[in-house]
């Protein structure tokens, strides 16, 4: 392992490398989005690409989320592999029709004649006071949409490998990047690698409670795990990495072993991804193997408020997770 050459990269830098490598590898890959050219993207994920690949493949778009997503769908139909950046992922609401009615359905409606190799990516920007229209965690909508895939990386290494796999996949992918993770560093191999889609990664081994967490929630889960380890409670942190498809084998195996499940998710509670994981786990794990009822640690069912104390009160916290752990252990 020590022989692998690595770089310390932020998640934004790792995503940038992933885009660059795929654009070098495949001329059908191009990127479009607002301020992604000379500006390099609001969070620098496309930095330097304009200089290296030119304006035909690195397209600074007008502020037209629906237009650029629809254009991505059309280009994908004729064999391109466009990557559409939504500057803040909440703006996906402006293009739900293109994503849900078009990208997700075109292959099926055509009886399999076409595929839509499109990636729509952008940041979940909560936790920093951006308020209700720039802070939403919306993955449940897309998990709920047949035809889409949903990927949510939790670190730089996963982000790069998953983005490369997403670009090469022939299906439309919603790729969600937590903004607070962009600046977080991890070791990333210098040599090319891919992370397979639909394969969870166990971020920490433990035998007492399975915590399923993706994206930023992984850090919360690991933080709780360190704290609870001092009390002799071992959390197993399962990061599904791809929410759709979901690696139920890994989740179910873990829960069958620990007998306890907590799902952490920053989306609203009602109809959320955490509920989906709980329900699907119950499809796979016999009730008698469970030592406690599964718990969800989620955001509250409110819009994300602006003021710091209010936002903290809405998003899932370490205390929420510790409290849930106490309940399932009692």
């Amino acid at each position, binding site marked *: 392992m020590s022989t692998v050459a690595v770089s310390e990269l932020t998640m934004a830098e790792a995503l940038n490398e992933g885009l660059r490598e795929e654009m070098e590898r495949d001329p*059908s890959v*191009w990127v479009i989005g607002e301020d992604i050219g000379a500006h390099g993207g609001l969070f620098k994920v496309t930095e330097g690409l304009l200089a290296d690949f030119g304006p*035909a*493949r690195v*397209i600074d*778009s*007008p502020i*037209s989320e*629906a*237009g*650029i*997503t*629809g*254009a*991505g*769908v*059309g*280009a*994908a*139909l*004729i*064999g*391109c592999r*466009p990557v559409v950046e939504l500057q803040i992922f909440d703006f996906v609401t402006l293009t739900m*029709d*293109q994503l849900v*009615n*078009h990208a997700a359905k*075109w*292959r*099926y*409606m*055509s*009886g*399999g*004649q*076409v*595929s*839509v*190799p499109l990636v729509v990516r952008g940041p979940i920007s909560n936790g920093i006071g951006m308020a209700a229209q720039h802070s939403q965690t919306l993955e449940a909508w897309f998990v709920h949409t*047949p*035809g889409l*895939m949903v990927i949510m990386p939790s670190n730089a290494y996963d982000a790069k490998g998953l983005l490369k796999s997403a670009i090469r*996949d*022939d*299906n439309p992918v919603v790729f969600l990047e937590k903004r607070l993770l962009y600046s977080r560093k991890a070791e990333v191999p210098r040599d090319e690698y891919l992370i*397979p*889609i*639909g*394969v969870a990664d166990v971020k920490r081994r433990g035998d007492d409670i399975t915590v399923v967490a993706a994206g930023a929630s992984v850090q919360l889960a690991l933080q709780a795990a360190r704290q609870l380890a001092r009390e002799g409670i071992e959390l197993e942190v399962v990061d599904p990495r*791809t929410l*759709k*498809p*979901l*690696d*139920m*084998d890994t989740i179910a195996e873990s829960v069958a072993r620990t007998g306890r499940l907590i799902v952490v998710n920053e989306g609203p509670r009602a109809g959320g991804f955490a509920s989906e994981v709980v329900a*699907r786990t119950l499809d796979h794990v016999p009730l008698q193997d469970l030592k406690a009822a599964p718990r969800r640690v989620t955001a509250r069912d409110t819009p994300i408020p602006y003021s710091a104390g209010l936002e903290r009160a809405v998003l899932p916290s370490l205390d929420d997770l510790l409290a849930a752990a106490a309940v399932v252990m009692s």
Partner: protein
Amino acid sequence: MTVVEPVDAVNALEETYLKLARIRAFELKAMDLFSEKFIRGSVHPYIGMEAVAVGVCGALRDDDYITSTHRGHGHCIAKGLELRPMMAEITGRATGYCKGRGGSMHITAMGKGMLGADAIVAGSVAIATGAAYGLRLQGKDAVVVAFFGDGGSNQGIFHEAANLASVLSAPVVFVCENNQWAISMPIQRAIAVEDIAVRAAGYGFPGEIVDGNDVLAVRDVAQRAVDRARRGDGPTLIEAKTYRITPHSAATPTDNRAPEELDLWRERDPIARFARHLVDSGAATEDRLEELGRQAAAEVEDAAAYALDSPYPDPADVEDDVYAPADWLREGRLA
């Protein structure tokens, strides 16, 4: 009527007439099949608007693409799709273009340059724009036509796509079929300008108005727009003023339009009009046109017989084609 150019051989004119007649016969048959409950959902007949699709597609090459609407059978036939798999699709059969997954509003035929019909009003205009841009990136000189309606020109996505196409110089032609009515809403109350074509000026490309019931005039204006797109000079908006003679759809037969207005537009029937032109100019005899009409009707009857004789798709396959083949597409990953 516009002057017929010398290059238009009699054969080409006859082919144009045959296409018009084929669409009319297809739509009449589709309405019958709907009444007889062989077609589910609905059928949105293109009757009265045939000259737009035939004129526009007459300016296209086989390797050019179109996108279409809920009222899309005419575009498909004009682009050269085969009647048998079309009829099989709208009757929900396994032999349909989309294996019965799409139906009347969603016919796709990639082999014929038909990117797909879209039942969201104006939903495919950005798709056409992106496909056009992608073709240019691929070094091809094919163009894409987006068909949509007067109602579509009020949708936000039309305006986004028009602007995007213009700044990207995408080789796309926006063809607005102004049939003057939504289901019950007349255009005068839906659009505050007289001509939809003027909206092109807001995006910096030409807007052309054409009599949508004059197939040769449509063909000429489309040819200019297609040539311009192919040259790399960017999009054009064509407003083809026309009228749907039949109600909005077979499933919604109530029609609140004035009978006198309907009569007026029946007199302007694009097929009868083109027939008169062909006879008057000596390009075809009435007998020959009747023969072509019979041929179109026979083709449609053959397609209907083929469709009704075809098997329904197997429900066991209903989850196929939700996703394109992928390594991860294994049992248990999705549900």
